[in-house]
């Protein structure tokens, strides 16, 4: 499967990846230049965390080999696609219980801020063209796609 690889030493915390993710998943039409960063409906699926010493630590869904989020899903909304290996989320089946949020050992998932009915989860930009938008936007090549 294809995975977004992370070279965290290269990350300088610019958060272009987060903005690209917000842009790729916005409900409204438009370009990144008119993306409303203050609209809580525009949420990023990736995060640049900082450890206690201020080092940047990119947090991206791993589409795990044995995904704990899928194991916790009581509605069938989360599933690992046998073809691509990616973990996909079907909003229409979701029961909004958020056991997946609890069960991700890396803390990647969260409920959507506005309605608390959906999970904010990386979809590898399958609907947004060629490959993950975050990767295309990283000026440091700290993230890149590789077959694993």
């Amino acid at each position: 499967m294809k995975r977004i690889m992370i070279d965290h030493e290269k990350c300088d915390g610019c958060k272009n990846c987060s903005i690209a993710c917000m842009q790729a998943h916005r409900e409204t039409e438009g370009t990144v230049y008119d993306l409303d960063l203050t609209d809580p409906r525009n949420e990023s699926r990736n995060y640049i965390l900082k450890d206690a010493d201020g080092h940047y630590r990119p947090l991206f869904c791993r589409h795990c080999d044995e995904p704990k989020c899928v194991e916790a899903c009581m509605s069938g909304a989360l599933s690992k696609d046998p073809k691509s290996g990616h973990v996909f989320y079907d909003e229409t089946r979701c029961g909004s219980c958020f056991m997946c949020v609890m069960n991700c050992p890396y803390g990647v998932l969260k409920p959507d801020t506005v309605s608390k009915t959906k999970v904010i989860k990386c979809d590898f930009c399958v609907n947004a063209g060629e490959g993950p938008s975050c990767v295309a936007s990283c000026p440091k090549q700290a993230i890149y796609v590789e077959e694993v």
Partner: protein
Amino acid sequence: MKYVIIGAGVAGIEAAKTIRKRDGAGEILIVSADTHVHSRCMLHKFIAGERDEQGLDFSEKDFFSKYNVEWKKGVRVEKVCPHTKEIQLDNGEEISYDKLLLAQGADSFIPPVGELRKASNVYGLRNLSDAQAIVKEAETAENVLVIGSGLVGLDAAYGLLERGKKITIVEMVDQILPVQLDAHGAEAYQKLFENAGVRFVLGRKASEAVCEPDGKIHKVTLDNGEELACDLLIVAAGVRPALACLEGSGIDCDRGVTVDASMKTSQEDVYAAGDITGLSGIWPNATDQGHVAGENMCGAAESYTDTYAIKNTINFFGLVTLCVGRIKTEEGDQIQIKEDKTQYKRVILKDGKVEGILLQGDISNSGTWQYLIKNKIDISGINKDIFDINFADFYQVKEDGGYQWR
């Protein structure tokens, strides 16, 4: 090889899938009382009328044909005979097996108070059949009495609110959701339910309930003498593993069916997974147990190791909560609380380790707490606000790009 699985809950379904991946040719049969594969965690959505039977199905599309699994539904197992390697159904049929999985779950516990067990308008909320019966009874019932304010009791109330019923919830202790929340966290949900029209009677027990000539209970007397009128009762006082059909089978049981780490019971070729083991009532654990049992029924040597089960999430009226670990405080605890108008967070620390976390309002990116608690990780050396601790503080990336806790 013939694999027989009793129960079509997540443990049974997961085991069937696991077996099929390992054994392409073996015969797999699921036997269940349930006539629809359904998620018990969504029964309130059925009662509310938000979803139909199909909408509760958690399994993959065309599961049975895709994995070539046969399904006998609407039948109950009456007897399990490990010595002759067969099970007996309530329709008289006998089915032989090479490997058997007990995954028939648990039954609602109706306490022996008054005539609760005899009345025709008293229901647990465990199976789709319960939810269907409740919906039917609710067609004519106006006053609903729910006994127990745990997640199941509140689920029932939530669903029936959508049907415009007058609901009273009786709870033994002096707060709702006593297993999951502290008093402050519980109050937030109590207010939301009260604003929606539910009345709570806390710190009280039902002490008398008598059937009237129509076979129904129309009033329940509490231990302070107060009488509550009702036409429909839902008892949410916990569940008990469904062990009845195992009597005389020689399969060792304690609270549930006793299993070793491979999910094998005391009898050869008989495995158990899910709520029937009494190990945990939590969905991900049942999935894991079903997976491990399925692997081992095919001759693998897997163990059920991620056993931690004191964890839950709650979502009513858009107020979300995560609670993992200990909820009651004790002497020597260090408590930290953070609260504003949108959230309430409380952590219980002891000797530098997190023993309990409660997050209400915002549970974003909170999956790391379970890991910290169940692995008893010392966080005293991390120079951060405790609520800002996250995976960055334990960050490691493996060669294949996967994360690993440092």
